[in-house]
């Protein structure tokens, strides 16, 4: 991106065009990627509500959670942590599960180990 000189930018670091965070692609920060596991999503939108980067993609018309905006998702894992289906799976298996366990609904998989 071309960088502007001091005369051509708002003073004091002010950001005058609201909503421009979408232009800043933060997906590259990610060490862990959220991916769907075997447990079916119940479309409760809890992950959508908690995601700090608005990176949960939803189909508003059909009220479905459809996936992750990987251009902006920083891989914080909050979606997986708050997912009620994940919690149910963990309780059912009654054991410590790895974050990338395939039995979960939202898994956090190390970027280098993602099976495309």
């Amino acid at each position, binding site marked *: 991106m071309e960088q502007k000189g*001091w005369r051509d930018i708002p003073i004091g670091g*002010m950001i005058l065009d609201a909503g421009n965070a979408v232009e800043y692609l933060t997906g590259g920060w990610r060490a862990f990627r959220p991916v769907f596991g075997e447990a079916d999503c119940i479309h409760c939108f809890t992950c959508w509500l908690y995601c700090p980067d608005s990176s949960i993609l939803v189909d508003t018309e059909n009220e479905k959670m459809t996936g992750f905006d990987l251009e902006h998702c920083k891989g914080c894992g909050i979606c997986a942590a708050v997912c009620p289906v994940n919690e149910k799976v963990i309780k059912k298996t009654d054991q410590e599960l790895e974050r990338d366990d395939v039995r979960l609904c939202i898994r956090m998989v190390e970027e280098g180990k993602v099976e495309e």
Partner: protein
Amino acid sequence: MSKFEALQGNEAVATAMRQINPDVVAAYPITPQTSTVQKFADFVADGLVDTEFVCVESEHSAMSACVGASTAGARVMTATAANGLALMWEIVYIAASNRCPIVMSLVNRALSAPINIHCDHSDVMGMRDSGWIILFSEDGQEAYDNLIQAVRIGEHPDVLLPVAVCQDGFITSHEMARVEIYDDADVKAFVGEYEPRWPLLDVENPKTYGPLDFYDYYYEHKRQQVEAMEHAQRVILEVAEEFNRKFNRDYGLFEPYRLQDARVAVVAANSTAGTAKTVVDQLRDQGLKVGLLKPRVFRPFPARELTEALQHLEAIAVMDRSISFGAMNNAGPLFLELAAALTLHGVHIPMADYVYGLGGRDVRPAEIEHVYRDALEIAETGQTERMVTYLGVRE
């Protein structure tokens, strides 16, 4: 019609605040400015102002509230002194960097430790690189006048910087003196309405203040602050010209006193300049060609104009009411900057620094006369024997 009142410096400042009627005042009382906030709180309680007066729990919070209110789009004022200013430190820089035209009455006094509540300039000298405009005032009248002008200076679209208006702790902050108080309507008309360009409360046009700003743009924003400081000098003079015309005053970047035909001069800020004027008159009566330069605008530092005003002298004695510890010869900041200004403008006059009055130590006419006699001797010999003298300290 203006009227003359017997007011303490702090009361004069509070009166200016009443007439300016700012949207928000956030302050925490600290000696010796407490009576400013106290008096202003009276005005609020009596319904004489529309100000939202925020009693905060510390000076750090006071300046934080000021920044918040200013970015929201309010005309904001505060008052502090010494350690109170020191506690504001972090936000003092943020106020300037966020380009908030906050006006602060700063009653100068010594920083701890040891604990001391009396006058010196250590507090303001610490903020000299923070990005604030800094004005000095000899007495309550000047503190009052400067405060009114500060509003216009800071809010000017080419400036948008906070302004600190200084006066000497106790010496003038608590000295009852004759102050000409202008008509409320005239002051109101002079300061006008503040029209913030980017108020946060304009919810139709959302914006962000103070975001993360790394190596890719932070530097450009600092460069903008330089530009604002460069514009500030012109704006200060424009505002002064209008003020002088309207209220019959004579403000500029500094005040020369019997300087034009002087051989030697003292440079002294705030109340000491007043004492020095008396000494100048006494020495002039003895036929000695001495003068005085009283800085008014310290930030931005008017290097070229000061050089032009002083270049005809044979010796210059600077009086500093603070020490820049560890700086060249442990001199005071005013001396150091003035010496650099003259030298870089190619003017080589013997100069000496006289640190004085720390922690409120009185400086008497006899001591200032001693400084003048030193300066005359330096002019005779062309040599500065001692670059820095700690005037009045016991050996």
